[in-house]
């Protein structure tokens, strides 16, 4: 008798989902009840500026967007080298999830900027390059949706995924290369630059960073599984249509 084990990936996905929800809830507690607001005014926002709390979700959203696009880059290179469908599915899933988080960066940023800068948007280097990054990957998803041959789509999309990633370092270092309104935090290049955050604020920030990484991994796994399910339907429908053609060849006109 052939028995089947419970789907292990479903269990792993469940655990990942619960871990994401718990960490996200914990990060909200730290952000709203533990982290202190800056004692100095933030631009037009008088101290204590509540808008500072947006930073705790804005920066992790940017980090996971970068992570998503880095996965698109790696999976696209692997797909072009091996031609394996699984890399193409991973690249597609990572691009979609990356676009969701990049959209959040572009939404939460202007919401923070309005009370602090006095304007929703400035065409400065960081904001403009992030917008171009978002447009690139939205274009990538449109390209995938508009072409019908899976093999050709995979190769074309892989090229866009590789070229599009070149903008990520430009976005990240734009605050150091050009004069921008956007605040520049500490980076591997400028380790001496202080984040201005105390222990309680760093706890809230890193918990949010872990929470966003877990949520990203969960969504990526779900989306990759969706791609595999879609492939299984396509294969099934192709097999059915081939069987139909074999059984009644006169029906086929093309």
């Amino acid at each position, binding site marked *: 008798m*052939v028995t089947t084990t419970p789907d292990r990936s479903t269990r792993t996905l469940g655990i990942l989902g619960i871990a994401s929800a718990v960490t996200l809830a914990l990060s909200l507690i730290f952000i709203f009840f533990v982290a202190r607001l800056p004692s100095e005014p933030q631009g037009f926002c008088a101290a204590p500026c509540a808008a500072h709390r947006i930073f705790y979700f804005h920066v992790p959203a940017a980090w996971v967007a970068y992570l998503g696009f880095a996965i698109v880059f790696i999976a696209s290179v692997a797909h072009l080298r091996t031609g394996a469908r699984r890399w193409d599915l991973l690249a597609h899933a990572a691009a979609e999830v990356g676009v969701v988080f990049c959209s959040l960066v572009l939404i939460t940023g202007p919401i923070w900027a309005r009370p602090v800068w006095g304007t929703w948007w400035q065409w400065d280097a960081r904001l403009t390059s992030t917008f171009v990054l978002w447009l690139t990957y939205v274009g990538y998803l449109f390209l995938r949706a508009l072409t019908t041959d899976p093999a050709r789509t995979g190769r074309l999309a892989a090229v866009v995924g590789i070229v599009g990633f070149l903008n990520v370092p430009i976005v990240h270092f734009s605050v150091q290369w050009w004069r921008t309104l956007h605040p520049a935090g500490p980076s591997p290049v400028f380790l001496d630059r202080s984040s201005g955050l105390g222990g309680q604020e760093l706890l809230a920030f890193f918990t949010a960073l872990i929470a966003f990484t877990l949520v990203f991994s969960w969504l990526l796994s779900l989306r990759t599984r969706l791609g595999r399910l879609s492939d299984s339907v396509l294969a099934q429908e192709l097999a059915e249509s081939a069987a139909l053609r074999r059984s009644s060849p006169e029906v086929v006109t093309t």
Partner: protein
Amino acid sequence: VSALTAVVLAYASVGIAIGGYLTSIVIRQKRLRERGAELPRRAN
């Protein structure tokens, strides 16, 4: 927009975006399953 309104808007947008995307995945998965989609299961 006051700082407090900005915080509410920002956190609400994060919740709506992640929740909305998750719902879209679940709906698409349900539709595929209705069309007979199956992931290969490991046999003992």
